[in-house]
């Protein structure tokens, strides 16, 4: 049976600063919660709110985090991911108090394990999608994939991702074919 512990009972996650959150986590550690687990969560939060690995350097150098990256959805997502991974690894699970708003991440469920998007599908999209669009396209797909995995399960989410990949290839592939045909026509006319 998984035990529950209150972490941040007074405020919602949206209202608190990251440092304050980490301090709350430390203070709420009880005897049956492994201290290293709390440490690990703190590190995950730091990495998570920065979003990119490069920005971790920002933190290690002691520079303030860009405020735009300390968002409610980032923190909520990191807490969700922590809980999912803790469940998978059979750690004593530390749940966020019900007052914390996790609605910005899907339906707020904390019972799905972390699932990676199909890497082969990502590779296929990266071949057909132009570099200026690729980051936005893959980001949107990953966001929707995570939400579907939470709501409908891994199998449905994977199926949806592959279906989106096929349609994305069709959309971008069609453009490539049209451009190729037009280029061939132009070259033909230039030769004449």
């Amino acid at each position, binding site marked *: 049976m998984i035990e529950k512990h209150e972490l941040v009972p007074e405020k919602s996650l949206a209202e608190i600063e990251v440092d304050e959150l980490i301090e709350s986590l430390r203070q709420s550690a009880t005897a049956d919660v492994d201290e290293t687990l709390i440490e690990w969560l703190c590190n995950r939060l730091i990495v998570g709110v920065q*979003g990119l690995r490069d920005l971790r350097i920002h933190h290690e150098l002691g520079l303030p985090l860009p405020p735009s*990256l300390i968002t409610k*959805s980032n923190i909520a997502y*990191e807490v969700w991911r922590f809980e999912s991974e803790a469940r998978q690894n059979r750690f004593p699970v530390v749940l966020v108090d019900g007052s914390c708003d996790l609605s910005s991440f899907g339906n707020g469920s904390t019972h799905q394990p972390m699932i990676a998007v199909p890497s082969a599908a990502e590779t296929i999209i990266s071949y057909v999608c132009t570099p200026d669009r690729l*980051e*936005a396209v893959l980001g949107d797909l990953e966001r929707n994939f995570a939400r579907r995995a939470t709501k409908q399960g891994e199998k449905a989410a994977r199926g949806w991702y592959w279906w*989106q990949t096929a349609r994305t290839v*069709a*959309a971008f592939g069609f453009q490539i074919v049209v451009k190729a045909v037009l280029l061939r026509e132009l070259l033909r006319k230039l030769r004449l």
Partner: protein
Amino acid sequence: MVGHSYMARDTLGTFEYQILSVLLRQPCDAYGATIQERIEDTTGRDVSIGALYTSLDRLERKGLVSSWWGEPTAERGGRRKRYYKIEASGVEAVRRTEAMHARFGGGLLASQVI
């Protein structure tokens, strides 16, 4: 033609009209996934993200929308959002398309019923 201005006689396709309508209602923080969700919720149609971005690119080339990069988020695997905003010419295009549809089909079914 890349970068041409939106011609006065042009009207929008159905999908372009739906995208611009979403941007009209969500002027500040619309990006690909939210536009996709909104169209799917409103129309019940399954929208592919690839088709959405090719249409957004076309609208941007016409000068009807503008875009900029947002912040990266963990939920998106550390990738940035591409935000979109409707421009004045986009609003005008929506208005023109709605006016054309009203002139062309307005009252057509009503007159058949009578």
